């Protein structure tokens, strides 16, 4: 039976007040509500504060390299398409070091879920700018303030036609729980960007800052309209839309690869060395 206690892991080493703590709590509640047990999910995480996430709960876990969550997560799914796979990354992890994998994962459209704990800063390495850091923010590495335009992950995902694109805020746990569940239940690549205060290094985008700006998109928003979704995605400043911004149902990759489509997972398919005797014959 799925119970909160089942998901208790190491004591989090995050700073008190860190948005990650809320995300963690919400995740556990979502798991319990969905009736999932720890072994039914594999969490793949990267390196960063967000990357520590799986150690603070209990699931199958592959905590890999900085920036490389998605290739690992996707391959796990290809090898075992009966396993639910959740990739957990930081904004630096996913949009910085791992940007190329993010692009590819959206195109590949495997049935996996991605949470990006987006605190708009590099937390673990002590406060350098991340791709989503606001222009002008001064850091030890950006003494003249950030001079680039921030990356807009939602707009990017809409442009890449990702099949589920949503934004949550760690401070709105009710909405967030729902988004987590929708993402985990969506068939296809589901991307959830979670705005999360970093109380130590991000003095610009604070809890208060997010709280004042985030608003849930209403029923008038049609997540099936790509251009509308793009227009909505461009909103990030005085107002920040949360909720499901874009959704496009299409076949997942595991449904399209003949060897595994409508078959048992690769990991369960039988093997015997004799299977390939026929291949050897061709060389005579």
């Amino acid at each position, binding site marked *: 039976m799925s119970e909160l206690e089942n998901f208790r*892991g*190491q004591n989090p080493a995050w700073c008190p007040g860190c948005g990650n703590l809320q995300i963690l709590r919400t995740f556990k509640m979502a798991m319990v509500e969905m009736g999932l*047990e*720890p*072994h*039914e999910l*594999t969490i*793949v995480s990267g*390196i960063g504060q967000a990357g*520590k996430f*799986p*150690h603070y709960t*209990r*699931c*199958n*876990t*592959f*905590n*890999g*390299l900085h920036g*490389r969550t*998605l*290739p*690992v*997560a*996707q*391959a*796990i799914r*290809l*090898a*075992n398409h*009966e*396993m639910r796979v959740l990739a957990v990354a930081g904004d630096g992890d996913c949009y910085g070091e791992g940007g*190329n*994998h993010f*692009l*590819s994962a959206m195109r590949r459209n495997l049935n996996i879920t991605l949470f990006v704990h987006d605190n708009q800063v590099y937390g673990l390495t002590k406060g350098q700018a991340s791709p989503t850091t606001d222009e002008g923010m001064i850091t030890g590495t950006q003494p003249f303030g950030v001079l680039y335009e921030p990356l807009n992950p939602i707009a990017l995902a809409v442009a890449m036609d990702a099949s589920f694109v949503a934004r949550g805020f760690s401070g709105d746990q009710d909405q967030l729980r729902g988004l987590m569940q929708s993402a985990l239940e969506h068939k296809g690549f589901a991307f959830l960007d979670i705005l999360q205060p970093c109380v130590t290094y991000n003095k610009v985008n604070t809890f208060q800052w997010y709280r004042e700006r985030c608003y849930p998109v209403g029923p008038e928003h049609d997540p099936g309209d790509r251009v509308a979704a793009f227009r909505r995605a461009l909103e990030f400043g005085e107002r920040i839309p949360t909720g499901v911004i874009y959704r496009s149902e299409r076949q997942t990759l595991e449904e399209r*690869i*003949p*060897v*595994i489509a409508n078959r048992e997972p*690769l*990991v369960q*398919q*039988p*093997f015997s*060395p*004799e*299977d*390939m*005797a026929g*291949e*050897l014959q061709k*060389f*005579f």
Partner: protein
Amino acid sequence: MDYTIKIGGQAGQGLQTIGAVLAKLFARSGFHVFTHQDYMSRIRGGHNFYQVRFADHEISASRKAVDILVALDKNTVAEHLGELSPFGLVVYDSETVREKYDGENLLDIPFRQIAMDAAGNRIMENTVAVGAVLGMLGMDLETLDELLAETFARKSREVVDQNLAAAKAGADFARANCGQCNFSVNIPGLAAAQEKGAAADVSAVAPRRMLMDGTSAVGLGALASGCRFYAAYPMTPSTGVMNFMAAQSGRHSLVVEQAEDEIAAINMAIGASYAGVRSMTGTAGGGFALMVEGLSLAGMTETPVVIFVGQRPAPATGFPTRTEQADLLYILHAAHGEFPRVIMAPGNPEQAYYLTGKAFDLAEKYQVPAFIISDQYLADTEWTLDALDPSKINYQDYRLRAGDLAKLADYRRHAYTDTGVSPLAEPGASHHLVVTDSDEHDQDGHLVEDAETRVRMVEKRLLKKLPLIRDQISPPLLHGDENPETVIVGWGSTYGVIKEAVDRLGEKHSIAMLHFSEIYPFPGTGKFDYLEVLRQAKLTVCVENNATSQFARLMRAETGFVFNKLVNKFDGRPYLLEELLDELGEPGMGGPGKTSPEKGGPGMGGPGKTSPEKGGPDKPGGFGRSPKHDGSGEHDV
């Protein structure tokens, strides 16, 4: 009997088709065959060649001397005329080549015209060329018929017939016009069988041998080892393995993913392996540069993974389509931190097949990354070989699956054990959680920072496993004299040329080859004291297809042994038989006195290169002196 046919021309002219058909045909006819290719990094034009050698005895290298040169363009004549053997001939179509040559040893055959006349189709001109070669050699077309039927099995019989007609016309023309042709090709065993009165045909008498290239051998080895997942990004000379696997993925339980880059490729291979399937990635040296971080991840998480690296001349992009053996020390030392790895460097397709199997077995058994190092030369050369045996590849599933896991009360992915090998479970197959981490972790796989766990994990992961893996490594192969005065040492793809050189020289000298194909953990001397063989020898020569004698350096680091002669080639081309013989000079005579390791000065991978003694042994086929493509003495990068 030992003939070499070289087909030269531009990319896109179809010389690979001609070469491949001839090679297969000679193999089916019971000959030993060896082929090698040389091509530029372009899709059309330029200058490429395909060299096919066949003989009635074992062969394992290309010769420089060419008996029949099929020139598809003018450039081929210019470049290779000088390579003709004393009785050698050039065959060409003056219409295509746009030049008419004088000279007794140049035979103009109107391939294109014959194709039009015999089959009504210009595109059969290459088939005419194949026929012409067979005609020049005095062979009949029985086996070709069979081959054409197979090749065009999916097309109509008409296509086969047209091709055969074209070939026959080519053969007829050649027979009629080749006054100079002086080849005698006897199908092994055929005359004898026919004397016995049987209506014996070639396919009945010829020994059944496979014709296989290194690329296919690696792919087959992986398949036979239960490889289920292959992720890669295309890069010469590793793309062949990827394509081979992709072609299999329709027929076997195998997923092949083209990754967005090499970083993704190795991380995918690791992810799939974590999930419970045997997995592999492949690349060239430059692509492997992007996998180095992932290699370290495999080391830390103890995730089995097999990595195929096709070497090519570097640094950087270098010569994309050519060959070199300059990534050994790089692969051996790649990645931050210390963890065990396995390195196999097969010398021929047979080894490539079995050692790929062994790489999978060791990777899975010890939960370490295992490499197969190849290069463009091994990838592309085709060899005849006896039937490969799938059952000789040790296949054992070392992982805990649902059944095993159900019985366990407790499971810890990185549990301390006597061997250092912890139980590897399939995630999701039971309630036991499978947790691993790129950070230092505890037995459960969760991240820790304390000194004590660190030390125990290093002991477990590295210090305990390494000697156990070393015990599984086979010693190098000694071929030739058992108490040799001269030992020629090589590793990986130089196997064939060294072996054949040693066989030749062995006719007059006390000489042997010592070939390393299982390179790391470096073989101990317990099973075979190869160091003793080296120490007893008067002359020890290390032959490498690189500029800095990397293996010689490794040998010194591992054993203290220092060679007294280093032979290097780093022009992007493999050693031809004559070239190596020339480099070796008169073994047992030349070479400086043996330098004791004590005397080796600092900063040197060994003593400076000695200039090879003049002149090679005088053999039929005409051993020309090859231009020197070797570096001078001081080099030790």
